């Protein structure tokens, strides 16, 4: 076998330990999701379609809803910023931090922040930035990358984490008991919360009608992060809007169940604005940075449905390719089916670099079946493959299709080829210098050719009947 596709090569070299961690985490996630959705709703698919329709509507009127959200957030006392791209977002955030004299902060989990590589940028600019989500904290200690949207360390096991804690001085000794690991992280992070001058979060939803921002976590780390600091910065992709607060009933019910098999995440925070008269808690300053970073272009493309995504990770859990390859194989912030669509799109002019990602799928459709917002992911993968072909992006190992089209549109040639294919039964096909054939035979036997036999039979059969 000679893999030439990067994701196949990556999967081949992955360690058994990592492979097991990913397999276990993903299949458990898939089972839990299925059980809870079907236990709680007679027709979960109807709910997924409703959520997809709400998101679709929002995206079709995104300009209107973004204006409404801006007005509501401003009325609530938040300051609204816009960032056209990653560099823009980083400098907007740095300017806010410098304006408030912040040198230390905690940051909760945010895919948008991962997307713009915010952490590294802030540290390079002399700001101590501590990840407060346990998984992201471990990723940071290891100088690693998250490999899953909701379970950033799905690729690690507790022994590796215990080793990291000991090495990085979070703990004095090695202890891989999960509760001990969590307690040690908690103690370490308490100090970071208290020393911080700001808290950076993402947002799971922003309600356009009220400007209310919704954060869900299972660790309560955003609450800890915001409680002692004067400045809260929320980095929000422009697709995170929902029209009305009441729409949250649909999305929160789907998000927890799809992501982690929970009816609701342990903490769901609704943030109406900064501290003010009648709102005694939270930071005095609230900044909301709306991130475009290619989203407007996606909205104008034929793959706009991907902007419905609420980052639950269900497609990653169920994806057989993700399970074999892990999120790191996708070379980007977003792995798995959603990443295979989103990454080449977000890459913009750099599309060709990531044009292999949409090919890493058997188009099995499991992702479409679990998506809480009903994104037709396989269709989008196909459209991107079509785009790659149109733009003549070289594809390693690709089987050229014009000879096939020639054959399949010439019936007599086709029939001859079918009959001739029986010659394969007498040839040493194992040594034939044909890459696809070799890759097939690398792990499988080939059935005996029976080319043309059915045509002979049906002719005889029709004459007799």
């Amino acid at each position, binding site marked *: 076998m000679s893999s030439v596709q990067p994701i196949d090569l990556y999967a081949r070299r992955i360690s058994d330990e990592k492979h097991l961690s990913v397999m276990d985490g993903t299949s458990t996630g898939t089972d839990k999701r299925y059980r809870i959705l079907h236990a709680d709703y007679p027709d979960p698919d109807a709910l997924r379609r409703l959520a997809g329709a709400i998101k679709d509507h929002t995206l079709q009127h995104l300009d209107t809803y973004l204006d409404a959200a801006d007005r509501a957030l401003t009325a609530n006392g938040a300051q609204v910023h816009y960032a056209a791209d990653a560099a823009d977002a980083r400098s907007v955030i740095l300017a806010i931090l410098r304006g408030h004299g912040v040198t230390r902060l905690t940051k909760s989990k945010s895919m948008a922040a991962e997307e713009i590589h915010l952490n590294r940028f802030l540290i390079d600019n002399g700001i101590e930035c501590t990840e407060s989500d346990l998984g992201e904290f471990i990723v940071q200690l290891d100088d690693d990358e998250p490999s899953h949207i909701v379970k950033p360390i799905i690729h690690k096991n507790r022994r590796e984490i215990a080793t990291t804690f000991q090495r990085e001085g979070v703990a004095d000794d090695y202890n891989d008991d999960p509760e001990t690991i969590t307690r040690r992280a908690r103690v370490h992070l308490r100090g970071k919360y208290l020393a911080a001058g700001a808290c950076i979060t993402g947002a799971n939803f922003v309600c356009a009608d009220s400007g209310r921002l919704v954060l869900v976590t299972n660790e309560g780390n955003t609450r800890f992060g915001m409680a002692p600091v004067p400045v809260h910065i929320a980095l929000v992709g422009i697709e995170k809007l929902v029209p009305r607060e009441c729409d949250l009933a649909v999305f929160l019910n789907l998000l927890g169940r799809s992501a982690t098999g929970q009816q609701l995440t342990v903490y769901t925070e609704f943030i109406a604005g900064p501290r003010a008269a009648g709102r005694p808690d939270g930071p005095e300053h609230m900044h909301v940075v709306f991130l475009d970073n290619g989203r407007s272009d996606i909205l104008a493309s034929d793959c706009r449905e991907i902007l419905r995504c609420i980052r639950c990770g269900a497609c990653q859990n169920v994806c*057989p390719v993700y399970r074999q390859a892990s999120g790191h194989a996708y070379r980007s912030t977003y792995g798995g089916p959603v990443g295979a669509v989103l990454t080449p799109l977000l890459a913009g002019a750099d599309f060709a670099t990531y044009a292999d990602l949409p090919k890493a799928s058997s188009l099995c459709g499991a992702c479409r079946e679990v998506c809480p917002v009903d994104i037709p992911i396989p269709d989008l993968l*196909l459209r991107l493959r079509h785009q790659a072909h149109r733009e003549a992006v070289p594809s390693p190992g690709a089987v050229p299709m014009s000879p096939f*089209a020639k054959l*399949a549109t010439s019936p007599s040639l086709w029939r001859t080829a079918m009959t001739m294919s029986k010659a394969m039964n007498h040839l040493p096909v194992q040594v034939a210098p044909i890459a696809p054939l070799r890759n097939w035979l690398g792990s499988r*036997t080939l059935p005996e050719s029976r080319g043309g036999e059915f045509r002979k039979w*049906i002719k005889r059969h029709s004459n007799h009947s």
Partner: protein
Amino acid sequence: MSATHARPVGKRVLLMGTCLCDAFFDDVARATVEVLEHLGVEVLYPEDQTCCGQPAFNTGDWDASRQVARHCARVFVGDLPVIVPSGSCAAMHLHGNRLQFEQEPDDDIASLAARTWEVVDFIHNGLGVTRWPGRFDTPTRIAFHRSCHCRDTGTGSAARALLSSIAHAEVVPFGQAEQCCGFGGTFAVTFPHISAQMGSLKIDHIRDIQPDLLAGVDMSCLMHLDGLAAAQGRRVPHKHVVQILRDTLIS
């Protein structure tokens, strides 16, 4: 990929034999004819048929795949139901073509989609056959692989209903049935490692229930799974559902 729209049902149909049956699995195409004829259906086989075009479609070469799809639509022109012993080729007509002809609507292509049935879906949901008059000589445990292209068509439940109704047959569920077997067309040869891993996992789950027979509606999946299992020395006897229907018929 919904194939729940009203499609023509009749006692005269066109058979699309599929390229895989043309090349390797003549007995599956033959069983399709025999089962349909048993049900009183006249089966016509247009000689100029080749392939649905899916191999090219999946690689993104839609110029090539549209040529093949147009040829296919011309070969099967008319108003008769088009019956296919493959969930995957049926899905190409029902859904794939819709995607690749979005920008250039084509009446023949639309007509093909409106008349295509995967064969087991046709027998159960089209002709209304709910019980199969068949019998195994001994109790037979069947592992039914619902191929991915039948995720939301009537095929899966149709196959389970018909197989279960055969005397001495038991359709036994196996683990992680929603997972793909790893065939995926050219995926099998462009991602050979992942494809083989996926297939091996599927074989593990199937073998766990110790079936007497593996049944499917797509010879592509079965060819891949059997090829892997044979190379690993752990084959499971397998048949297309229509072969089982034919072979168990009480004559």
